[in-house]
């Protein structure tokens, strides 16, 4: 058998195994409502399954007895659906198994678990998408098979894949969009550009967080779009219409119902404090939280399972994964960040494309324009590299208030990634292969995402006086392009391939151990 087709079969076995595991967790391990805001997400899917398309923010409610068959004496009160409202693609898909279950007269606990299966299936498909994405970026099928499941070994990802939430589904949609983006960069095939635009539109109608990816992805498509001016204009318009269609629809809907294009929540907001961004950055453990919450912040309100004791259930009960698993993950992330940055600053086997031979695109035009001026190129490269180092140093310095080694490693990783756009900018200053520019694009989008999270967290801090909204899962839309960049760099640093198997096994053991030794006992321990 062709080895490549063998690996393609194995990745489907891996995907199936991950679906089974996540599905089994959805049925027997993760308590009902124990995924962040799961009741709110479930209520939206439930509304659609009941024929309400699409519930209006402010009017939508969370039924009190959503999760269990209420006893005869239970009071069925409703409360406002408080969670942020995102566009409806995920909820529509999640409503399908729910509607089927309702048609078959399934009871409430089973209905909820059937709805959870959308995330479980998404996880398996996500790993397949990443496998193909990394192959498209240049990594061999064998090493793509070894590396692709890494994301499924992050406990937060496996936790979310066992619940009703749009995060893993969004991750999958963004990975498919990125797959076509990378294929377009590598081949220039126009159908890949349109496929990318289509999936960007799908991401745009899943969660507003992905709108940055929609804008960034479309920007890259247009920057890399090849051909004469008229053809360029025609396809630029076509790609823009496709990619932005759902975003424009949702914006118009928001204006129609709420008079606010970006209306997302019913929670009333008023600023209570005046704290500058720099003070906020130095006084709050932003990066530490971002990192720890990316790896594993498990639990929510699922501890409350006894109807007679419902009056004792206030707030969420959560646990963080600490110790060796988190530390090892931090070491892995910083190694990846360092490798990408090193490759950007000192490329190995960079595939320079002669300007005259390259296809016509804004990217190549810019590279040709700047690449011709050899006297300017070197000082500009030096200046940008210096700026990159300064950004890294400044970020690391301003974020120095971290409690432990993991926090220190986390801030180094984030600081490196923030510096990446500047370090990678030289790839735009000379004729280069699109794959080289992909590393730069990944850095720009990731830096934009981190800065957006920082900005939103600062806003939330001004309103509540507490550090809120620092969730690693908000980075999911931007990770696939970073994974493609990592795969591309990895494909050029072949001696490192020997390390991949041990790293994969350790990540897997850590995730399994976290569940068996900490998380399942935690779910049982806090239950009332």
């Amino acid at each position, binding site marked *: 058998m062709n080895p490549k087709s063998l690996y393609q079969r194995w990745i489907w076995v891996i995907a199936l195994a*991950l679906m089974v595991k996540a599905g089994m967790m959805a049925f027997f391990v993760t308590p009902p409502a124990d995924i962040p805001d799961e009741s709110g997400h479930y209520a939206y899917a439930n509304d659609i399954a009941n024929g309400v398309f699409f519930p209006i923010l402010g009017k939508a409610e969370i039924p009190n007895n959503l999760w269990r068959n209420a006893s005869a004496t239970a009071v069925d009160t409703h409360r406002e659906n408080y969670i942020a409202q995102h566009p409806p693609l995920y909820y529509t898909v999640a409503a399908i198994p729910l509607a089927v279950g309702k048609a078959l007269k399934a009871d409430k606990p089973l209905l909820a678990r059937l709805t959870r299966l959308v995330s479980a299936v998404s996880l398996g498909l996500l790993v397949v998408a990443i496998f193909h994405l990394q192959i498209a970026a240049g990594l061999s099928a064998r090493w793509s098979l070894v590396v692709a499941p890494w994301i499924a070994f992050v406990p937060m990802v496996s936790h979310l894949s066992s619940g009703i939430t749009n995060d893993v589904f969004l991750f999958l949609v963004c990975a498919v969009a990125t797959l076509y983006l990378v294929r377009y960069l590598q081949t220039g095939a126009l159908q890949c550009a349109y496929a990318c635009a289509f999936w960007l539109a799908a991401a745009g109608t899943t969660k507003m967080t992905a709108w940055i990816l929609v804008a960034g992805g479309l920007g890259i498509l247009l920057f890399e779009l090849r051909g004469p001016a008229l053809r360029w204009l025609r396809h630029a318009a076509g790609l823009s219409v496709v990619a932005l269609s759902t975003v424009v629809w949702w914006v118009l809907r928001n204006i129609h119902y709420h008079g606010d294009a970006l209306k997302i929540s019913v929670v009333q907001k008023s600023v209570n404090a005046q704290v500058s961004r720099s003070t906020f950055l130095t006084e709050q453990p932003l990066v530490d939280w971002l990192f720890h919450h990316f790896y594993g912040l498990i639990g929510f309100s699922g501890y409350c399972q006894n109807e007679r004791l419902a009056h004792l259930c206030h707030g969420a009960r959560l646990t963080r994964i600490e110790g060796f698993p988190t530390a090892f993950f931090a070491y892995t992330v910083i190694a990846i960040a360092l490798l990408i940055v090193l490759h950007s600053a000192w490329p190995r086997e960079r595939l320079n494309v002669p300007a005259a031979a390259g296809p016509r695109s804004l990217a190549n035009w810019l590279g040709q324009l700047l690449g011709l001026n050899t006297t300017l190129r070197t000082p500009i490269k030096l200046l940008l590299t210096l700026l990159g180092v300064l950004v890294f140093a400044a970020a690391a310095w301003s974020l120095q208030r971290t409690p432990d080694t993991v926090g220190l490693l986390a801030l180094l990783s984030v600081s490196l990634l923030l510096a990446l756009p500047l370090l990678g900018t030289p790839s735009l200053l000379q004729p280069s292969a699109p794959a080289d520019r992909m590393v730069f694009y990944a850095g720009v989008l990731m830096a934009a995402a981190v800065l957006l999270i920082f900005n939103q967290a600062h806003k939330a801090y001004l309103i509540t006086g507490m550090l809120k909204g620092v969730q690693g899962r908000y980075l999911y839309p931007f990770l696939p392009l970073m994974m493609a960049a990592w795969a591309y760099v990895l494909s050029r640093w072949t001696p490192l391939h020997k390390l991949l198997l041990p790293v994969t096994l350790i990540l897997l053991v850590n995730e399994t151990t976290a569940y068996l030794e900490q998380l399942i006992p935690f779910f049982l321990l806090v239950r009332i």
Partner: protein
Amino acid sequence: MNKHLRDWVPVLLWWVVFFALGAAYHFRTITNYGVNALTGSLMLIDAQPAGEIVASFELEAELLPVRPELAEVYSQEEVCIATRVATYGNRVNRGHVRMELITRSKRQSQLIDVRHLRDNQVINTCFDNIHFQDMRVKFDGTTVQQPRLRLTGEDGLPGSAITVWLTQTDNAPATLLNGKKSPAGLAYAIGHQLPAKPEKWAAVLMLAVASLLAAIVTRAALSGNHRRDA
């Protein structure tokens, strides 16, 4: 041999190896699933170890009362106590620790073998003779007598004995350490046994899936030695 079979036999062998290793490591934890915490805290804040639980060691903690609503709902269920042990850097430990629960009308002790305990592990000890209805606070007109937990060393020796964590959370219990009042209280929780059969089977299945994933990636990574990479 059939080509498909030739590709899958090594995967199956690796699967068996990984599953056996995982099962050996996690078996005790999985079989002990099923206790929850109705009160107390196992959080470690400004934590410190209580000192090696050797033969002369004695710790006594006054347990905080369980909320009346909870005690009423679970009044007929046996009481379990969770504590967090520490093993001084994963060394091999030996000996036994006696845990005694004393209420206003009953007392019962359990002997704990420390050989297989891991660092920071939460251990659950259930007392089949003591129920939540026995955990009520006793008030004799002048003093309040709360249920107490005593930990004593049976045969632990310095260098191979375990310890338990003390913590400084708001609800840490008043704790006497070898007769003297300790600034930190025992990290503990009071709970009851839960039927955890689904969780136990789910854990075994998770282990099986993880072993399969490990087997496939191991087979794929090692296949490059005799097969041209795709």
